[in-house]
């Protein structure tokens, strides 16, 4: 460990503000991009599943009206 105590670690000399805001903003942007990528995947899957179900229902209705 390069620091004497945890308080020392947080203080980063006198530069705690600069170091921790740099890492905070970076973490936010990286996590946001990962979450958006994951969410996009789920959304496309859901949309396609919904479209497919609707198409299947339409097909059933058509079959019934024919008989």
């Amino acid at each position, binding site marked *: *460990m*390069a*620091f004497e105590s945890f308080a020392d*670690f947080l203080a*980063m*000399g*006198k*530069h705690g503000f*600069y*170091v921790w*805001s*740099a*890492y905070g*903003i*970076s973490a936010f*942007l*990286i996590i*946001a*991009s*990962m979450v*958006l*990528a*994951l969410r*996009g*995947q*789920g959304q*496309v*899957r859901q949309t*396609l*599943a919904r*479209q*497919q179900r609707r198409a299947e229902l339409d097909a059933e209705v058509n079959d019934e009206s024919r008989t």
Partner: protein
Amino acid sequence: MLGSPRYFYTFSSSVLPWLTPIALVTLLAGLVWGLGFAPSDYQQGNSYRIIFIHVPASSGALMGYMALGVAGLVAVVWRMKMAEVMLKAIAPFGAALAAISLVTGALWGKPTWGTYWQWDARMTSMLILLFMYVGVIALQNVIRDPRQAARAAGLLAMVGVINVIIVKYSVEWVQTLHQGSTLKLFGESTINPAMKYPLLISMLGLWLLYAVNVLMRARTEVMWRERRSKWVAKLVTRPEKGEQ
């Protein structure tokens, strides 16, 4: 045959489950080492620890843009579908990394040089890199037809490669506030090894995470573009094992 969308989907399904944890663990290990265990700098004290995210993000943003340029070239000249997909998948994380590079650079500059920002060659060309990424993303969102969107975005991506070269060599060609590289791929690095190894590890971790992000986004795009095909229809009704 990564050029086939279907093959790409199966391939990425087998890569992501192990690449994702490896990327996260590598990045965290590098950052913990750099933040808590690497020695402090004899001139800059502890503010230099911003390097462990600043350099990985900046190099990631530059490499990502080079990849974007290649995807642009292939999409424009050979109109390959997977290149169009990649053009869309590479840009967002690259834009995030360019933004991180600028913000962390400013926060490092203040305690070190006494200013958050200066309109010099390095910083200005990095800001332009962020705009190029945003431009490529915006073009793809504005143009309805995906193939036409890919052509326009591909051209912009290719033009922007010139700017990447300017970013890279700006510290050597002209006087700037930004320090020169201390980490060299070829030849002797001038950085202390106790700082070099955590830096290399966090760099590798962030690049791998970039790859994970690109694969995830490319899968979404492939699925959407191939939505009328049988294999996607099957995938939607019967999800693969281990997927939500």
